[in-house]
């Protein structure tokens, strides 16, 4: 997942020598002298990398285009919203901010930017950056499942179990997980593997988008409108039953593709400047219509807690498409933080540079936080006088973020490893700032 990866060296206009390399830029950047031991100054650039990419020596000498802080803000908001929503389940949250649509659009945007290089190379580097954090989750998660009794006999087809296990390595389809695990009393609730594997659909969808991106980009250039609307049409076809597919894995993959494909392509279209080529009044006029149709459909189909946009892929697709289009239209391209947001710089930087880790682990953190918080019910004083506090989601949210913080410390390095840069414990950009201050 690339939006997450983040280069702390890129936020300032003062970036100079070789900074644009981005390990992932690989061969094309080989000529650039790297900044010696200060790996963190060169590293991290998303595979697609900074605008300077493909980096050429002469480009390295002039100030590189700065990182778009608006996108960073969107990504951070999206992550925060995802965690909050998975904790509370409030149906209106996805309406307030379409996190998944935003994430896919930003990823699509970066992908289109990288695709100026040979597609095979881009895809390879992208996958390489995505998978190690997933493997780490798999090592921890699958080990835990096996310890609690999950094994080849779990679903009666030992052969299939072994084969499906390969999806933990290359998630072309959803990685398998154990159901009905007992949990660990007072630490993690029962059936935890379901929560752990819950977010993995995103990784699978992302992988497919990456694989298909070269074709999507070609199609987008040839037929922009058709390509943009095709996923929505597919989504409608699924929704109204014009299209039914056998099995479970293929339809679920295609449903996710159709739900957020339009957002991904929208991100590509933004990068390609397609949205800038049409008159500026078009997007604000058209986007609300898509969103309104999605909302109207949702409201007319028993929208509510437990039956929100997640359960209505077409409504989700339309709402995300409309709102993401507006967000991209606004896109103010901040190369520096506006004054009011400056104080959030480090938090947002951290969220951006550890987005994959946070996303992969947050659901497990929520479950652990909630299970541990529930222990307080055992204390008489607490449930007699503070039941409001025990029922409140806010302390659990705070606790969850503490746990996520520890996941960043324990597992975040996998992202650095994947990007071939020196592992960092807490990449919030502070260290880089000190370097600049020198």
């Amino acid at each position: 997942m690339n939006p997450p990866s983040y280069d702390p060296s890129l936020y300032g206009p003062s970036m100079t020598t070789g900074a644009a390399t981005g390990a992932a830029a690989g061969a094309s950047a080989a000529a650039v002298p790297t900044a010696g031991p200060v790996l963190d100054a060169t590293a991290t650039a998303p595979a697609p990398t900074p605008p300077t990419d493909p980096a050429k020596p002469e480009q390295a000498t002039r100030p590189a285009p700065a990182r778009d802080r608006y996108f960073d803000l969107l990504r951070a908001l999206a992550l925060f919203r995802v965690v909050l929503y998975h904790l509370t389940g409030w149906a209106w949250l996805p309406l307030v901010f379409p996190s998944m649509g935003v994430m896919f659009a930003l990823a699509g945007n970066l992908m289109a930017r990288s695709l100026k290089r040979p597609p095979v190379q881009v895809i390879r580097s992208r996958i390489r950056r995505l998978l190690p954090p997933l493997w780490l989750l798999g090592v921890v998660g699958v080990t835990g499942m096996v310890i609690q009794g999950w094994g080849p006999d779990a679903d009666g087809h030992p052969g299939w179990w072994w084969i499906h296990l390969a999806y933990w390595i290359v998630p072309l389809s959803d990685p398998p997980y154990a159901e009905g695990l007992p949990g660990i009393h007072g630490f993690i609730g029962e059936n935890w593997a379901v929560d752990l594997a819950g977010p993995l659909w995103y990784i699978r969808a992302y992988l497919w988008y990456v694989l298909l991106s070269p074709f999507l980009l070609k199609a987008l250039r040839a037929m922009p409108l058709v390509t943009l609307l095709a996923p929505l049409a597919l989504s409608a076809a699924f929704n109204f039953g014009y299209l039914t597919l056998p099995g479970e894995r293929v339809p679920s993959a295609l449903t996710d593709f159709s739900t957020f494909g339009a957002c991904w392509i929208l991100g590509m279209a933004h990068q390609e400047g397609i949205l800038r080529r049409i008159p500026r009044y078009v997007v604000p006029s058209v986007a609300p219509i898509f969103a309104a149709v999605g909302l109207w459909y949702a409201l007319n189909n028993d929208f509510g807690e437990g039956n929100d946009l997640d359960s209505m892929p077409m409504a989700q697709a339309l709402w995300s498409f409309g709102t993401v289009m507006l967000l991209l239209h606004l896109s103010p391209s901040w190369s520096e933080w506006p004054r009011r947001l400056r104080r959030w710089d480090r938090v947002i930087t951290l969220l951006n540079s550890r987005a994959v880790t946070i996303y992969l682990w947050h659901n497990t953190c929520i479950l652990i936080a909630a299970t541990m918080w529930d222990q307080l019910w055992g204390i008489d004083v607490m449930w007699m006088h503070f039941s409001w506090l025990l029922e409140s989601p806010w302390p659990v949210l705070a606790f969850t973020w503490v746990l996520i913080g520890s996941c960043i410390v324990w597992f975040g390095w996998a992202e650095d490893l994947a990007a071939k840069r020196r592992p960092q414990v807490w990449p919030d950009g502070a260290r880089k700032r000190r370097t600049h201050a020198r």
Partner: protein
Amino acid sequence: MASRTRRRGPAKGAPDGSRRRRVPMRLLLPSLVLVALMAMLMLRGYVHSEILADYRIRPAAANDKVPQEILKGGPVIDTRDGSASTLRVPDNSVVLTFDDGPDPEWTPKVLDALKRNEAHAVFFITGTMASRYPDLVQRMVDEGHEIGLHTFNHPDLSYQSKKRIDWELSQNQLALAGAVGIRSSLFRPPYSSKSVNMDNNSWPVTEYIGSRGYITIVNDTDSEDWRKPGVDQIIRNSTPKSGQGAIVLMHDSGGDRQQTVQALDKLIPQLKGKGYEFQNLTEALDAPSAHTEVTGLELWKGKAWVFLVDASDNITAILVVGLAAIGSLVIGRFGLMLLLSAVHARRTRRRDFVWGPNAPVTEPASVLVPAYNEAKCIESTVRSLMRSEYPIEIIVIDDGSSDGTARIVEGLGLPNVRVIRQLNAGKPAALNRGLANARYDLIVMMDGDTVFEPSTVRELVQPFADPRVGAVAGNAKVGNKDTLIGAWQHIEYVMGFNLDRRMYDVLQCMPTIPGAVGAFRRSALERVGGMSDDTLAEDTDITMAIHRDGWRVVYAEKARAWTEAPESVQQLWSQRYRWSYGTMQAIWKHRRALVDRGPSGRFGRVGLPLVSLFMVLAPLLAPLIDVFLIYGLVFGPTEKTILAWFGVLAIQAACAAYAFVLDRERLTPLISLPLQQILYRQLMYVVLLQSWITALTGGRLRWQKLRRKGGVSAPPTVPTQRRQVMDERPVR
């Protein structure tokens, strides 16, 4: 609404110090009015049970938790002290009870029947009905009947929380206090029947209500009059077993109660003949009255409530009339515009069409370009004139610019261009000075930020072939329509010029020659004394004056001029504020035309009312559309409201599309029409409301200079230059 363009004059009016105070006022007053209207509508929806109404009825359930003494006891249930006791009315006594009223039609008839037969009864009133018809409640009390509570808006209480039950009771008491100044301790739950039918769902409610100090009254015999079973059946249902007393359930509201009234006239004499007495409940039980007087704050709260409900009903009625008026006005105007613009287009587009006997007009024209700080635009303006296909002289009048506008023009070193400088004196003065210096008899006026096509001047003066024509309006178009706000103004301009102006042309009452592109006969200008600075809309003022002088004013559609529209809400606001306030001033200035004779009177009696109606009055009612849209969305019928809104949108889209086709414009900007209806129209009427407030309070208006970007440099019909226009815009 007719659109025009005009350049800003110099700053005058209130000193800058007043800015701070004014900005909130212009938002505050209109929004207060809207909020008040909305609140009144909400109140109405509330007492008409359009909100908070709950029509669920609990099916019968087991009754094992209801004490036996209740199930077997009488219909008067007293659980006030925690125990449960019941009472029956004594033998030979009948207590008639009427639920759900008061009803404006049937309650008076029921009361008449009771009066005729000298009977007292108990009315269990709902808060909603009592709030709306307080006089009937007063009459009940005056005629010796007793009042009981029947909740505020009649929900099945077994579904409601304790909080809601408390609220139902207190709101009901509030309405009662407001109507007659009393409280009542009698209560009948909605959907109740006899004691034996009490079940596990309704009993806890009864207990709770007892704990709040109320006596619950159910019934002995149910007339079932709501089924309309026929008069005789109602009598049979109501009649108690021989000799026994009874509480009889009837209804004076909720539908046609003719049978109930007829039954009363038979039942009462019949039972009286058998020795029955018809008393209210406490009379029958020989107990102290259930009414207690309310005084002090509670009484005034009740009275205020009843007053507000009354006011909301009246205001709503007025609003509905207003909505009907604005609806028919809007539709009528569109119909008229479509019809007349079609007539106009057919007439002027006939192959053998000529403007008049002197066609074609070839005598040279003087083009006046008043400019005030137009450094960014003036070069494109003047250069566009140099491409004119028609013989012209160009006079740029620099109205004391501080940005070197005059020097820029002089620096161009163009032949046929004269620059006249004056101290800042305003646009009318600049135009008059230009007129004094003009060599020719045909005067073309344009703005310093406007770009002409090569054929514009020629097309603009052609109508002077008709000696009766004194002034010509051209076709101003928005050059910067790339943004949302630009696209909205583009739609507005295209409609304003292709529908409104054609209509006004046919009706011969064009209110405004746009400052951006207009032509005048020198003789016409001189006869009315030139431009005047009496109003903020000197173009509307002069146009009306020329009309009153007996000249014809026509529209030349092919005389296109490209102008730069405001790009921020702030600029748009001040521009429109000046237009609408200036139009009001001009109408007021020329009000005498109403009683004049001759052409002036004709304009005064046809043109002025039409312009006032369409440009000043109709927009004032326009907010009603939105008020009722929100009301309909919230309180239903939601689907019909949405459909109606889309219907109006479709009519507008059709009219706009027709205007675009007439002007041979691309239809794509029309996709911004739905959003225009939600965001832009409201802005326009708030501006108009503000003008009204200014007009009524006699405030003065400050000028504000539009910040020019110089985005319009050539007519977009010239492809290569069009690109250049686009390129000048900074990329987002």
